[in-house]
């Protein structure tokens, strides 16, 4: 993780501290602007997980900042309890294998599936 020297990183740090499940994405959960973001929204919704969706398209500094923060070149990015879980491929793989449900359970986050 990057050191907290810039305001964008501080904002990300507080977002992922104050919300159990955070998805940095393109567009909003209701209107995703990218297929990869939409796929993660669909998985979380299907699992009945409450999450905070943050649209990086409205803020170029956030769009770049979240990539630097996690050392991850793409969006979407899923955080659970302050920890970076992965992008679309990893989330999908973990969902299919049941690891995602297990992770959420181990962190005490309610999921219906």
């Amino acid at each position, binding site marked *: 993780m990057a050191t907290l020297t810039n305001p964008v990183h501080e904002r990300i740090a507080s977002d992922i501290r104050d919300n159990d499940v955070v998805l940095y994405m393109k567009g909003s959960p209701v209107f995703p602007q990218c297929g990869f973001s939409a796929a993660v929204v669909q998985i979380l919704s299907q699992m009945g997980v409450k999450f905070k969706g943050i649209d990086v398209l409205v803020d170029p500094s956030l769009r770049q900042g979240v990539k630097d923060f996690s050392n991850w*070149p793409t969006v979407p990015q899923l955080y659970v309890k302050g920890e*970076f879980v992965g992008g679309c491929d*990893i989330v999908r793989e973990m969902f299919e294998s049941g690891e995602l449900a297990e992770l959420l359970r181990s962190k005490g986050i309610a999921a219906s599936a």
Partner: protein
Amino acid sequence: MPMDIQEVERLIKAGLPDAKVRIEDLRGDGDHYAAYVESPAFAGKTRIEQHQMVYKALSGHMGGTLHALALRTSAPKPT
């Protein structure tokens, strides 16, 4: 600006010389790829670390010239 499939494979193999790499052009448009990468270097690494190693091999192209690369990584199964 799309990226050539051979170039994607070349970069991954340059960064991870012992990797087995298979790449599919998902839509035939030279812009949406899926890559399957198996490397002994992934052993003991988390999925995030494995993907970061591939992204590092792609040296900045991911999220830039390379728009869509669905990635699946694994270490060789012990025989």
